[in-house]
């Protein structure tokens, strides 16, 4: 058993006899209430996502997983293919298990694939990844709401991100894969 405070986005839990992948977890301190951890859990069998809140002093059962360093190859519809860097074994993960992550994959990117009982369930991205800008409006006036002066740009894998006005097509930028935000020029 582990403290619910230790779970993170890639944890895998056994709860009420089912196996869940943690999609999101967040500390919440409601007004006048105790401290809680609110999670989004995906049932790996049914694919159904549930919201589940734990008191922060509770324990949860984390299951043993295997982590393998792999390289992203390509996607074929819903399935995303990776290759094990040591064994050259190729595996596939369903895109529904990669929500919020698949947008950051690019060919050749090294990730950590998480397997449970031999079945690949998820993967961890590097915190920061460099992408090439393939499309960006020239120095337009941008979105100034709230003083955050940014514009939309498309990177090499088709994902759209917000970048400062001075970024041009052809430049490389570093993106935080956790937040999807621009960090700096590469």
């Amino acid at each position: 058993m582990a403290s619910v405070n230790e779970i993170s986005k890639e944890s895998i839990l056994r709860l009420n006899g089912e196996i869940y992948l943690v999609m999101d977890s967040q500390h919440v301190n409601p007004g006048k209430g105790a401290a809680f951890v609110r999670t989004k859990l995906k049932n790996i069998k049914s694919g159904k996502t549930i919201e589940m809140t734990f008191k922060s002093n509770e324990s949860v059962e984390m299951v043993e997983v295997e982590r393998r360093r792999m390289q992203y190859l390509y996607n074929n519809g819903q399935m995303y293919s990776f290759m094990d860097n040591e064994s050259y074994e190729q595996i596939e993960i369903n895109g529904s298990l990669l929500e919020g992550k698949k947008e950051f994959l690019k060919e050749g990117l090294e990730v950590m694939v998480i397997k449970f009982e031999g079945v690949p369930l998820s993967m961890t991205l590097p915190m920061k990844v460099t992408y090439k800008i393939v499309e960006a409006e020239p120095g337009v006036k941008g979105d100034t709401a709230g003083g955050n002066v940014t514009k939309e740009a498309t990177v090499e894998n088709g994902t759209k991100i917000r970048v400062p006005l001075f970024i041009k097509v052809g430049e490389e930028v570093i993106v935080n894969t956790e937040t999807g935000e621009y960090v700096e020029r590469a």
Partner: protein
Amino acid sequence: MRWQELKNNPIAKENLRLRGEILKSIREFFWQNGFLEVETPLLVKDGNLEPNLELFKTELKEIDGTKHSAYLITSPEYGLKKLLAAGFPKIFQFGKCFRNGEPWAGAHNPEFTMLEWYEAGESYLGLMDRVEELFKVIASPEVAKQSRIFEYQGQKIDFSLPWFRLTMREAWQKHAGVDLNDFLTYDTMFALVKEKKYTISAGDTWDDLFFKIFLSEVEPKIATLSQPVFLYNYPVQMAALARVKKDDPRYAERFELYIGGLEIANAYSELIDWQEQEKRFQNDVLLRQKLGKETIDYDRDLVAALKSGLPECAGISIGVDRLVMILTNSKKIEEIMPFTASELFKK
């Protein structure tokens, strides 16, 4: 270093400038509406008793070396209520409050800015109107450089009046699919939480069970609404310092304000019955012991002030940092504070 960021990044700098503008317009709003700004102490002898909060404890030394335990406030409410009892009918305090042992991320910083005000002769419903009036001023294009319809982190928020008012019972009916009236006892709530397959641990109170469902099923739905929401009539177990509803003693006259998924304000028709107040304080002292929190005494001076007579009144606290986050479309508290605890202590 944060100061370098402020020096080089015009966006970061603009957020702090807007923060100043917003603070100024809040002050002006209260002065124009006949309130007096007061400053009750931040360093106190009797700390706030809220059972779930961890206090900053320090030591006060007299010149002869005599030592006193002292605490930083988590809210100025005790001091402000004493002033109400002393005959100040409309007061506001704008200042720092402190909470220890909480996460340093998202919308939390151990030192934060709270706006708290009290109005004699008002109820919590009147406060909702006042909050709407306040936002008409501070969420205006002149102050926040945004139109009436804001965007907060990709979500549209329409500040046009009137805002959405939803009772806790209605919210549960709509989003958790049950009538809250049927689950107001420990046994019934326990059975519901079990049926819905949430975890239950020894020592869970009714409130804890309530929050497991509320935070999973109800609050996330409220967070997606495109209007500010007053969630009101809290179950009496969560009354804190609020008055019980006269026509339905199962609920208390308390509301919270949610904007863009952030909890912005907490308000009550204030409890003015000194005996009930003393009873709740004594319960909180016991609950703190049970939770393993530091044992502190309750503020007997406040009970005495209540005993001398507190007018019917309502009071509210607003998290100013969160309000600035919304008005500047900032995702994290560090974007709108000059220097946060993680900047000062973790680098």
